[in-house]
């Protein structure tokens, strides 16, 4: 599992350098926990977002959340609320804020911040237990955040 995670980080770092249109993690503007502006200007792909939400080495949102739409994925967690109806309860901007940095919406949330690069205590190099190095990148890329948001918007009751 380690190699894919690390090469994934390497890809993230490169795409950062190349895509100047992206909003950097340190430049995201939160308003009451919501983020109005797309992080990339490119529409998110809900099918891709669904994969990221379910995939252990990407968002792994199912570690903490369950959703009826993801019934075929084994082992859902129950730390966070069920995602069914998230697209009704929250606007796109709010969902973007929650996925990018849930702590801006929910004070002290246990949910990790998926688009953040600073302010960590003892950040590590993925799951190696070693210190972070220059491959350190947010948990998801800007486009991956957009894909996840596009998927969450489709979760209507």
């Amino acid at each position, binding site marked *: 599992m380690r190699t894919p995670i690390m090469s994934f980080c390497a890809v993230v770092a490169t795409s950062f350098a190349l895509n100047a249109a992206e909003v950097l993690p340190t430049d995201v503007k939160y308003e009451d926990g919501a983020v109005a502006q797309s992080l990339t200007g490119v529409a998110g792909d809900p099918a891709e977002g669904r994969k990221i939400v379910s995939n252990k080495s990407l968002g792994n949102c199912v570690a903490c959340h369950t959703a009826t739409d993801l019934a075929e994925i084994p082992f859902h967690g129950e730390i966070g609320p069920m995602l069914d109806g998230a697209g009704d309860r929250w606007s796109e901007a709010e969902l973007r804020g929650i996925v990018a940095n849930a702590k801006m919406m929910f004070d002290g949330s246990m949910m*990790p911040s998926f688009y953040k690069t600073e302010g960590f*205590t003892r*950040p*590590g190099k993925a*799951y190696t237990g070693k210190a972070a190095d220059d491959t350190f990148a947010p*948990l998801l890329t800007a486009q991956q955040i957009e894909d996840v948001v596009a998927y969450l918007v489709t979760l209507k009751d």
Partner: protein
Amino acid sequence: MTLLKNTLSAVAVLSIMGAAVSAEPADDTLILNEETEMVTKTAAPSHLSDALDEIYSGWLFRGTETRAMQADDFDNPGMIFVEQAEEVWNTPEGSEGKSCASCHGATDSMAGVRAVYPKWNEATGEVRTLEMQVNDCRENQMGAEKYGYTSGDMTNMVALISSVSRGLPINVAIDGPVAETWEKGKELYYTRTGQLELSCANCHEDSYGMMIRADHLSQGQINGFPVYRLKNTKLNSVHARFKGCVRDTRAETYNPGSPEFVALELYVASRGNGLSVEGPSIRN
């Protein structure tokens, strides 16, 4: 994010075998070898009462088969390692030509010891874990090489020493000369580390009983250590477990045997004051 991905396969195997993976701690009583009733659930110690009402052994969060396996020494694979350590206990080593038995006699002389560690050592002015004490005996009494902190030899020896305290209540001191170390351990317990920004408390105080992916979260008690894990089929030490949990927050871990993990061990042990010593226990 791959939270404890390695346990996934072991859990999958267990659930195929029919082990119930439910949200609540099991309503079950652990009676060891049909004679010793263990305390796996009791009122939280007073220092913890503003955070938890009851404390639970990790045993109550494991499946039916795993729980049954631990109830009988003939079925507990951890006891094979205890037997190996029993031989080492009686074997002279080092420049002094002594074995553990030369100074301590039979292993049952160690009854009660596991229950009060980590504890203050007056002579050296430090908080000592059982591992540190074993190495002190090896170096200074036997003239033998120190064991690696989480090595098989060390963990097996700690399991032997734990095994003769099974059923006695954990009772580590938290005041007097250890108070400062205990406070440091408490701070570490509540610090959110790594890129996932999770503390021990997030998982083991706020979320015990819940599933995190395939894992049924316990209170992260250490009364059952060393634990035989079905996942890696050997005994695992407290600091190895701490390291794994910190790593899973995508953090830079502390080292086994480090002052930080010694402090954390003292604090976590004290959260289990009142539970029975169970080591070697069985977990996924």
